[in-house]
């Protein structure tokens, strides 16, 4: 198992904190629908940093990468197919009422 230096950990932690502040600041600016996109991109970057360095995925086997890939792929299936229903419902006039 590869040993990652302490310095790397400190740098990653620092950038995560910076990104957190960035998330907050980005939310204060009115970007319309892009607010959500920006927030999610920053979150994805932070998540990737944690997976790659804190969780050592960068130095892990292909198998670990396959597991991560499968998890994300299946999450994607759950999202895309469920939303394929909700985003195309207009012809049914199926607004939620009550």
């Amino acid at each position, binding site marked *: 198992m590869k040993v990652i230096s302490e310095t790397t950990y400190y740098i990653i932690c620092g950038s995560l904190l910076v990104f957190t502040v960035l998330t907050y600041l980005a939310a204060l600016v009115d970007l319309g629908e892009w607010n959500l996109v920006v927030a999610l991109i920053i979150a994805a970057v932070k998540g990737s940093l944690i997976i790659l360095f804190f969780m050592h995925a960068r130095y892990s086997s292909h198998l670990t990468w396959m597991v991560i890939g499968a998890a994300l792929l299946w999450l994607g299936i759950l999202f895309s197919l*469920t939303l394929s229903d909700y985003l195309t419902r207009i012809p049914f006039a199926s607004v*939620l009422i*009550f």
Partner: protein
Amino acid sequence: MNSEITLERPEIEPINYLNARHGIASWLLTTDHKRIALLYMISLTLMFFVGGFFAILIRLELLTPQGDLVTADTYNKLFTLHGLVMVFFFLIPSVPTVLGNFILPLMIGAKDLAFPRLNLLSWYLYLLGSAFIIWCLATGGLDTGWTFYAPLSTAFSNTQVIKGITGVFIVGFSSILTGLNFITTIHKLRAPGLTWFRLPLFVWTIYATSMIQVLGTPVLAISLTLIAVERVFRVGIFDPTLGGDPILFQHLFWFYSHPAVYIMILPGMGVVSEVIPTFARRPIFGYNFVAYSTFGIAFFSFLVWGHHMFVAGESMYAAMAFSVLSFAVAVPSAIKVFNWTATLYKGSISYDTPMLYSLGFIGLFTIGGMTGLFIASLGVNVHVHDTYFIIAHFHYIMVGGMVMAYFSGLHYWFPKISGRLYPEGWAKLAALIVFVGFNLTFFPQFVLGYMGMPRRYYAYPPEFQVLNVLSTAGASILGVGYILPLIYMIWAWKFGPKAGNNPWGATGLEWTTPSPPPEFNFDITPVVTEPPYNYPTVDDDE
């Protein structure tokens, strides 16, 4: 059957996993995958007969158009618990936990699963889940249908929903842990030389099944948790009067529960892929295609859940996408059926019981699969949705397919598990009875469904009676066919003739160890040098 070996066997029984340790604790605290498989087998058999008992009561009630045997409430509880017990406590765990647990490590030349203690924990979770179901049953039952549709289950049913959900939730975790264990085992503990394309197809199917268990079950767990929270705290995540959307529950539920159908059928396909080459003495036709189609099924199974909701209120366009994907999942299934049939070509075929069950499986699975095309087609679905057509279709897959395959596997590996042979004549008779009884039970239900008999009806218009009577008659025959193996297998376990290491002359590592296998399977870790199903053949003169 190799009789010489039996004769030369010395009087003293060699040490095997059954007689190596004694006492109740040696069973309840065992980490031996073979013993855990037997524990599972006993508990599953129990649950199978509990579920079967409900089924018989359901069929008896449907003998007449009026409701006369039980009350409507009781009937609703019967079909709910029949579904719940059979799906979550029998079909989903059946082949993986019993045959998979026992055979998989033997097949890949491993001494045990990767996490033996986790394996035992899975069994205890299964027991705990069953205990919740029994508790739920004892305190009044459950009447939401095994599908737990909101808002009926959250705001309207006044039965023991929470206990039922807890039971399913717990058994779901058992299923996840089993899947996790199998995946790790297959990746890490294969014998030297056993590459992916030298794996028996059973291993492929268990791997694909485990993938579905690991990736699908958590979503079921969270959706059932939400139902429970909504019910207990009167909040609304699915209840429309509080702002929720009941269709969302169906999405989450079927995200797991449709692939769950393939959790049930894939290992059955694995069994059949083992049995047919053995009794045709030929390598399986198109090994690569069968192996890939296993993964094809597992992957596509996650893309089709919306076909349960064509008329339930999902968007028309989503329905179309789900419909075309549902047709796509039929392709790999078709590939398998064609390849099994082609394996028989030029074989040396014997008619032993496992083979009879497997041939029955192909026939019934073909019918079940093809009626799936009817349902995947949007137009026909609008008519047959929630009718007996659906009931017949999925029973052809689950009972005609899966239970046949489970029986096939039980008979096939019975000599390995017990070290003894079952009585062939009785077994063949039972196979015949099951086949006839099954078709008589469920074929009329296709007709009933197209005629328009809705599912979960306890009283029905009189013109449906004839077919219902036929179905009930078939169910009683089927019941006999299921009890028979129970009797002769218990008998054979004690009194059957010794089987020897390899009674079928099959390939595969599991047949190279003694029957029953020793505690740690292999004294020397085997090294694999040849492809699977490497049966010798003679040149074709034609």
